């Protein structure tokens, strides 16, 4: 019992990682077929998670609020469940592939304005964050601030009109310090990723399999 609960998932993960990495390097017939098949499987399992777990979890959570009749909340929860089921049903039964004009209309009318607007709120927050936090407090923040302002003056099309030096300096910052900094971060992060993989292969990384 515990073997299937604790060890087998770790073993599956480890074997998959080792074999999939080997097929990238080793020239054996059928190796690319193996990779394709497994990646397609992962995609399919991922689709099940989105199709089943996501909506189920949401409905269960709001059903809990409704059953407790939490004041100010339960009516909203009824509404949330209703709109989830309606969208799901329109998508599944009216157009199995998701291309009907009804679903596209729902997308244009409901999803596009909400997700674009919530994301656009960060436009306001970035303005107040710039105003409140970006101060020449010490050497380090000053360098960050200076680079940021110069890049903004490069990005704004009007920057080059105010002073032709802005685009030149901005390009140089993108080309040298920005590339240098992120290249170092990227190298270090990739090493971290490989280390994570090695720990998974050796079975020391257990959180995903219910260990701690």
């Amino acid at each position: 019992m515990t073997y299937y609960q604790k060890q087998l998932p770790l073993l599956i993960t480890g074997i998959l990682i080792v074999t999939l990495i080997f097929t990238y390097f080793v020239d054996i017939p059928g190796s690319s077929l193996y990779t394709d098949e497994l990646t397609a499987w992962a995609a399919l399992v991922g689709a099940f998670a989105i199709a089943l777990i996501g909506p189920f979890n949401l409905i269960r959570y709001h059903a809990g609020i409704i059953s407790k009749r939490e004041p100010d909340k339960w009516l909203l929860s009824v509404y949330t469940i209703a709109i989830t089921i309606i969208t799901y049903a329109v998508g599944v039964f009216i157009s199995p592939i998701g291309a009907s004009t009804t679903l596209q209309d729902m997308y244009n009318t409901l999803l596009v304005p909400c997700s674009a607007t919530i994301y656009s709120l960060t436009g306001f927050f970035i303005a107040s964050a710039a105003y409140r936090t970006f101060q020449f407090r010490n050497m380090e923040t000053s360098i960050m601030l200076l680079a940021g302002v110069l890049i903004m003056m490069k990005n704004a099309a009007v920057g080059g009109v105010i002073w032709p030096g802005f685009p030149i300096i901005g390009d140089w910052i993108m080309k040298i310090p920005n590339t240098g900094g992120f290249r170092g971060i990227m190298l270090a992060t990739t090493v971290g990723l490989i280390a994570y993989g090695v720990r998974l292969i050796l079975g020391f990384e257990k959180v995903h399999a219910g260990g701690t």
Partner: protein
Amino acid sequence: MSILIEGRSFEFLLLILASAFLAYYIYSARRGYRPQIRKMAPLEAIPEAIGRSVETGRPVLFSVGTSTLYSGGAPQTLAGLSVLGYTANIAVELDVKIAIPLLHPEVIPVADEIIRQAYITAGKVDEYDPVYSVRHYGKHTFSWTSGILGHLQREKPGAFIYMGSMLADSVMVAESGHRAGAMMIFGTASSGQMPFIVAAADYSLIGEELYAAGAYLSQDPVLLGSITGQDLTKALILALILLGTIFMTFGIDFLNNLFSM
């Protein structure tokens, strides 16, 4: 060498070397080898932040970020969870309430287990209130973000610790956390969000520092060994870069030839 696909031999060698370093140090750490890790001020500040919450009678808010357990950001979430273990132990000891809103449902049992363990260790398991501590504000990044924004204004936490992968939520929660007057200790390896946490948080960890945080706090031999192996791999990369540059300066395209083998 004909078994290996042409042009990938040296990549393979690099990967094998890195894996060997990592495996070697993980196992030697398990046998008792203890490397030193350099001091990290943000992590030293966690007890101070919780202490301040005690003085003002306010709760602690924790976040492990926006990544699932099965994507590229997973190591960040795991690192955040190890910092959560450390934080929860101190908070429970000092009788401060700790809340953790989670974006991805599959992290819920893990976080629940970590906080429960902290209460068990302190012998206060009866006081554990999972409904308060482990929350779920919906699986969309922005619904979850708005949940945190509301939480910050309603509960006014004294300390807000956010360790994990971040998206556009970073600037929103940082602004809101400032308005709530929380002491903020943030850490992320998501490059795009680093400028906001460096500017807006009281203490910040960036990039691979976050991965080292778990090892630093927990002193878990596997993680410590892994950090040593990672450092050695980075030293190898540094050596390659320096060697390659020297050859290049004298007109020999040494690395390019090596990597196209």
